[in-house]
């Protein structure tokens, strides 16, 4: 759908180009124009003849209209059933939207303060926030500027001296919390979500109170986690002037232990200046600070979407026995064994404890390893390791000891440790649409997590990481696509356990195997020399009857340490599948 060929200069224009430049221009001209997009664009252009509006302003007109209707209804409803907090809140939203700027300041226990700016009509939020000190880092001040319409996030940290630009959709950042408050709480109606969608804001109640010597309306909101039993909880108490319907203060009350860093009650004082900052520089960022765009390139996002789509995780089903061996050992010589059940977003991993003595008798020549191990697994003792019921991931910690003569006399195996107790812990909610933060991106092939968890839609690329796709890499398995991810802020420090976090990841996906991640490397680079510190490679894979590909032999680099040696060895994982196994739902109950 392009009119290039209809141009009177068509032939002439083409004659001016050659080679890659010609091919590139032709590719641009071959791209579909998008009739729907065109229609929408023209519709937006036509509306300019109406009073000037932006998307956000239209949204606010809608809100204003809603608020007006709500306010009218409020009279009826108040008479009919008393207070109706939602409708009253709509008038607050309307009042905030009518102001050019909202400005809020809070002072923390150590005397430092944070400030936020928000403009509904401009659809921007900015401010200066402080990330409290942690065990690994000092407290840090950040400057943030969010274009809420475009979803663009600019962050400036003084010690880096750069403004890093990313997109909201790339992951979490220090401004996410405030952005969420404004978009889900002040900008839109309650019922929005915060904390990356994990908490829903619920308007609990409103009441008349006296604060700072004046009568006002207190609106209480609560951030409620779905399926949460207690745990951390956060309330916002917003104090509204009854004459103007504008909040003049809000308090944040948290039961989260981290909130102690700020005090469990944090007060924000609000005013409404006529003018506000034009950009992030107006907040105090030096004019010399350059913007570094770390938005994920479109090809990275396309690859991530393809990997997720091809995995078809929702209807995945299998049972597998997994044997972990040292490098170089035969298939029947294992160190640890797992049983894995997987059904959609639910999974279960059991493992053996103790040690395995290879069979004294020779393995029959030509024995089928899968059959042999499945039968052998029936004779082994397994304990729960990891389970997911579709909503939460559960971990099981077992306390065990070597068998005593008394245990053996009572019938315990000499080969297996005796389990004394098992403690069940609920760990993380399952996030079907995005990867859990904190996990690296290449846990593939390990039965306890990477193998049984669904692949992330974002491939776990943190905000601020730099990523790129190489569709024809010179390294890695033939025919694969390479995704490279780099942490530009990496520092060459080791943890107290000697662990160095990766500086880079290289991930090779195989299009001919349903975009299976067939190799990944974790690397650090020092003095111009790269070193692989971890990762995995799928040495063999099999195709299930439904067409999906699964790893059958996985090598994990440097995964096993030995006493007396500072060099780790590779670990081999062999997977023996049953795609037709009966997998009852009860298996996944924690």
């Amino acid at each position, binding site marked *: 759908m392009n009119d290039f060929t209809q141009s009177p200069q068509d032939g002439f224009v083409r004659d001016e180009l050659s080679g890659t430049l010609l091919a590139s*221009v032709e590719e641009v*001209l071959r791209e579909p124009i998008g009739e729907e997009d065109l229609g*929408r664009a023209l519709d937006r252009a036509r509306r300019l003849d109406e009073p000037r509006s932006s998307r956000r302003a239209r949204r606010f007109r809608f809100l204003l209209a809603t608020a007006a209707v709500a306010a009218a209804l409020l009279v009826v409803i108040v008479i009919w059933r008393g207070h109706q907090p939602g409708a009253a809140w709509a008038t607050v939203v309307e009042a905030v939207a009518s102001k050019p700027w909202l400005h809020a300041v809070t002072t923390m226990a150590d005397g430092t303060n944070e400030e936020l700016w928000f403009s509904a009509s401009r659809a921007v939020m900015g401010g200066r926030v402080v990330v409290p000190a942690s065990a690994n880092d000092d407290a840090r001040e950040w400057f943030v500027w969010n274009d809420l319409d475009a979803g663009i996030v600019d962050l400036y940290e003084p010690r880096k001296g750069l403004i890093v630009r990313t997109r909201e959709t790339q992951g979490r950042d220090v401004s996410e919390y405030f952005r969420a408050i404004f978009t889900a709480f002040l900008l839109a109606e309650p019922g929005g979500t915060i904390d990356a969608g994990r908490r829903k804001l619920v308007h609990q109640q409103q009441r008349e109170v006296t604060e700072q010597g004046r009568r006002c309306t207190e609106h209480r909101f609560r951030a409620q986690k779905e399926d949460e039993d207690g745990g951390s909880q956060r309330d916002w108490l917003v104090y509204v002037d009854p004459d103007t319907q504008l909040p003049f203060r809000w308090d944040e009350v948290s039961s989260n232990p981290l909130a102690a860093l700020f005090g469990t009650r944090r007060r924000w004082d609000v005013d409404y200046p006529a003018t506000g900052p034009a950009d992030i520089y107006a907040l105090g960022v030096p004019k010399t600070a350059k913007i570094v765009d770390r938005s994920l390139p479109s090809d990275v996002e396309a690859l991530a979407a*393809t990997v997720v789509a091809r995995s078809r995780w929702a209807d995945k089903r299998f049972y597998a026995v997994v044997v972990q061996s040292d490098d170089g050992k035969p298939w029947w010589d294992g160190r640890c064994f797992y049983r894995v059940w997987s059904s959609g977003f639910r999974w279960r991993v059991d493992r053996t404890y103790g040690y395995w003595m290879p069979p004294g008798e020779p393995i029959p020549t030509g024995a089928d390893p899968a059959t042999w191990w499945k039968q052998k697994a029936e004779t082994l003792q397994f304990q729960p390791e990891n389970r997911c019921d579709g909503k939460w991931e559960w971990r099981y910690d077992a306390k065990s000891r070597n068998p005593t003569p008394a245990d053996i006399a009572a019938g315990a195996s000499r080969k297996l440790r005796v389990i004394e107790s098992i403690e069940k812990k609920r760990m993380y909610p399952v996030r079907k649409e995005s990867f859990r933060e904190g996990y690296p991106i290449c846990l593939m092939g390990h039965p306890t997590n990477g193998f049984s968890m669904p692949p992330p839609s974002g491939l776990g690329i943190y905000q601020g990481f730099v990523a790129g796709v190489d*569709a*024809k890499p010179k390294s890695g398995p033939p025919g694969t*696509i390479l995704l490279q991810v780099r942490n530009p802020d990496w520092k060459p420090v080791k943890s107290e356990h000697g662990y160095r976090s990766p500086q880079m990841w290289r991930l090779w996906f195989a299009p001919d195997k349903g975009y299976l991640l067939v190799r990944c490397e974790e690397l650090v680079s020092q003095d111009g020399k790269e070193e692989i510190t971890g990762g995995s490679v799928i040495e063999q894979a099999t195709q299930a009857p439904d067409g999906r590909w699964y790893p059958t032999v996985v090598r994990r680099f440097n995964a096993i340490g030995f006493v007396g040696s500072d060099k780790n060895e590779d670990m081999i994982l062999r997977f023996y599948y049953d795609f037709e196994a009966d997998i009852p739902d009860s298996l996944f109950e924690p």
Partner: protein
Amino acid sequence: MANWDQIVRDHGPAIFRLARRILGPGPDAEDVVQEVFLEVFQFRQKQEVGNWHGLLRRVATHRAIDRLRRRRGNEPLEGLEISDAADAPLETAVAGELAERLRRAITRLPDGQAAVFSLRYFDGRSYDEIAETLGMEPSAVGTALHKARGKLRSLLEDKVKGGGQ
């Protein structure tokens, strides 16, 4: 004064097509079209517009290139490898990589060259039309095009020969 709806109907599709070709798939072209029409809408309230066609094209080209530059300006050109379309394994995932690389390369051009190149090859305009649209001499159009082609060719083809490193 001309009927606004008619102006949008007459010129909107071409302006959108031009913006789309400069910016590629995604919401940017739609936003640029709105920006362009808004700017022109305000302009016509101050003075009569004689050449809607040229005015809209000029504003659209500059605004689209501005946006492309803002979006792409800080990405390294080395971020995307060139591969032969015939054996690219990524299928649809990186379909359009040549187009994307060209767009990135355009952000390396001076404004004038980027605008001339876009109008010539994405919009099929003649030298005279480009000159009128951008307020240049036709001879300057030829010079700018020559420079733009040379630089783009160098950016794109060196990449292929050098294996993308």
